[in-house]
């Protein structure tokens, strides 16, 4: 177990290094923020002064080494356009994104697994057919369109929910969250639903496929023959066996939700970190882009690790030492 964790940690460091180097070179190849933000009336001296002020006059390898040195001390650099540490900028927006992603994931799981089970157990019933048809919509409708439709229907036409933004926040263990007040929940419902739709459809389909496959397996027949109740056969034996693919996919999807909630955040003016990334790319704010991607990569590494650990709990046959990252 310990060897396994150490090996995973080493691999992670390599991934982070490669990642930061790639982003550095990539952004450097496009240009620098001075080209975009400099005052139109600036002369050559102004431009050179600005480039020097941001440390962009040094050769790329030197800039990268400076970055690495600072990064080891926990400093990922200062945003060019916000003039605050990139890490701080991202961390202060992270609670909003996490809140959105966790809520979306909860919606997907809480609604997706029962609906998927139902569709799997009664595939030919009207309800089962309906669930599957609707889940196709969840896959195929683009997020931005559904988001806009939600806004049109529930905010503009019906006036039930606020069209955008995050509700008032309160501190929970030092983290500002908005789901503690009714106003906050009202703001959260639509963006979270919007973000959840794709994963909801995914969980439904995975659960249904797994259930249908499991129902004809010997252990289910055996459990039934043994006289176990339906609730126990399905609730314990089937559910446990089909959860491995569901855990894998939801785990990975959770990372994706955090990293790429951008569309939903933009449509609902949700002040999360996805919007920050897009804005930073527009103005080539390299410290923020690098820090953001490093954090996201770290997220994925941690989630993958947790998924692997969850496997070993769900399936005693899985040995962590054998699992390759």
């Amino acid at each position, binding site marked *: 177990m310990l060897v396994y964790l150490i090996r995973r940690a080493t691999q992670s460091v390599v991934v982070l290094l490669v990642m930061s180097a790639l982003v550095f070179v990539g952004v450097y190849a*496009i*240009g*620098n*923020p*001075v*080209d*975009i*933000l*400099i*005052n*139109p*009336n*600036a*002369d*050559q001296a*102004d431009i050179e*002064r*600005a480039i020097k*002020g*941001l440390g962009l006059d040094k050769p790329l390898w030197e800039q990268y080494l400076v970055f690495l040195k600072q990064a080891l001390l926990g400093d990922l650099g200062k945003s*060019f*356009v916000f*003039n*605050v540490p990139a890490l701080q900028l991202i961390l202060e*927006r992270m609670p909003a994104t996490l809140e959105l992603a966790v809520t979306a994931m909860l919606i997907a799981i809480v*609604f997706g697994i029962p609906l998927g089970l139902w569709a799997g157990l009664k595939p030919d019933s009207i309800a089962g057919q309906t669930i599957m048809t*609707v889940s196709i*919509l*969840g896959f195929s*409708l683009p997020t931005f369109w559904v988001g*806009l439709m*939600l*806004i049109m*229907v*529930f*905010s*503009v036409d019906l006036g*039930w*929910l*606020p*069209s*955008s*933004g*995050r509700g008032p926040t309160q501190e929970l263990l030092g983290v500002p969250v908005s789901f503690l007040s009714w*106003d906050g929940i*009202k703001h959260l419902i*639509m963006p979270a*639903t919007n973000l959840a*739709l794709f994963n*909801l*459809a995914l969980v439904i389909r995975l659960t249904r496929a797994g259930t249908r496959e499991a129902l004809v397996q010997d252990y289910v027949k055996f459990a039934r023959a043994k006289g176990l109740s339906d609730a126990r056969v399905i609730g314990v034996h089937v559910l446990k066996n089909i959860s491995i693919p569901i855990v894998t996919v939801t785990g990975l999807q959770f990372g994706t939700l955090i990293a790429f909630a951008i569309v939903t955040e*933009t449509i*609902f*003016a949700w*002040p999360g970190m996805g919007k*920050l990334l897009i*804005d930073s*790319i*527009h*103005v080539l704010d390299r410290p923020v882009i690098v820090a953001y991607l490093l954090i996201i990569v770290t997220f994925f590494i941690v989630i993958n690790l947790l998924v692997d650990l969850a496997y070993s709990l769900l399936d005693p046959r899985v040995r962590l030492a054998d699992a390759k990252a």
Partner: protein
Amino acid sequence: MRSLATLVAALAFALDFALAPPVAAADLRIALAADVTSMDPHFVNLQPNNLVAWHVFDALTRLDDNARLVPGLAESWKAIDATTWEFKLKHGVKFHDGSELTAEDVVYSLDRPATIVNSPGSFVPFTRPLVAKQVVDRYTVRLKTAGPYAMVPYDLNSVFIVSKRAASGVKPEEFNQGKGVIGTGPYYFVAFKRGDRVELARHEQYAGPRPAWDKVTLRIMTNDPARMAALLAGDVDAIEQVPTADLAKLRGNANFQVAQKVSWRTIFLHLDQFRDRVPGVTDKSGRPLDRNPFKDVRVRKAISMAVNRPGIVERVMEGAAVPASNLVAPSVFGHASALKPEPFDADGAKKLLAEAGFPSGFSAVLNAPSNRYVNDERLAQALAQMLTRAGITMRVETAPANVYFVKARNQEFAVAMLGWGSLAGDLALRSLAATFDAEKGFGTWNWGRYTNPRVDRLVTQSLATLDEGKREAIAREAMTVAMQDYAVIPLHHQMTSWAMRKGLAYTARTDELTLAYQFRAP
């Protein structure tokens, strides 16, 4: 999905939504179209940052809604000799902390931008021409320039005046928590939630007209449909930069008002006029041309004639633009109103091309940004079709602004679209049509490297003429010379629009600023 949405809706309905606190009548909520990055008014020169700063701070000079210069904190100014400007401050102007504005604060504020070294878009270009600053008395400042320089009062419109006492020793990033954000503007700073909103409250000691709103919330909503939806749903009272496609719908809705005006942003094409062989310019069979067609004024004129400006305004811009003949909008200083937009004449364009030695036309690439100006991509496609009809086969290549501008400044384009907003015609010409000279700051955005000694001479002379009347005459002449020589191909002046709920009114501004204190309730 539908069942889930219904469920959620039913849930929202079941729980009493009337619990939300009602919005007080004297609050105003405005959705902004771009992100605000800093509360330090001297950190980076970005329109959204300046917009917020205009609520909290003031400058020595201001722009009226036609983008003409009017007194701000200075009640008057004059050039007392060729290189000295004297500004008289208004008496009794109070900062938010109750202290009075003095000449010391002005000098401090003019010195401050140069102390911020890590800005990607510094205010230094506005303060650099001031080689010496002198406090004459409590309400008088004298500013010296190296040579005669007419732009000083205009430049000072861009430098916000902060309180020396409050801002001394405060780092730019500390402004975001409200430290040092002490100005003389009609609103004082309450809160800044990055990426989300800025909250302001009325400064009761403000000397100017009393704004109608106790509290103002500026919400950042960069997505066009989302901003529209927030207005329609009543979550905000007003929005800026209404998407052109939604204008007609809003006009037809009695619950909303639209304010619209020609903005100072002019869209035009730069043509490569310095290389002998231009990248991407070939004959019809794809062989590179052995000469640069754009060096011939007849070709440039033909391009201008081939463009159907009224068609673009009507179809591409959906009415939210006016055809351009100048580099600055009609209300702006130095606009030469004798120039008229080039009439559309495709046959005439073909004839001119033949005269210039291109009877069968040629091929070129039209470059445009894809997310910078209103409908820029569609505009590029429409232009390419019009030019192709006149014999110049145009291929469109677009790129996001961050990639586009870097390439454009490296002279990688033959035909390139650019939009420009300027306070004065001579100033726009200095950047766009004067001969490139990095040291002097001339022609810094003259991507086509157009050069005309007469334009250079007139621009230099105009910028050194301290008498506004004489200066404007010279600026108009410079504009006329440059435009008649087709230095660039002007297309249209964008219109900028605001939409608001019924019962609000806003005087649309040429400078595109959204100022909460100029919204009126009837």
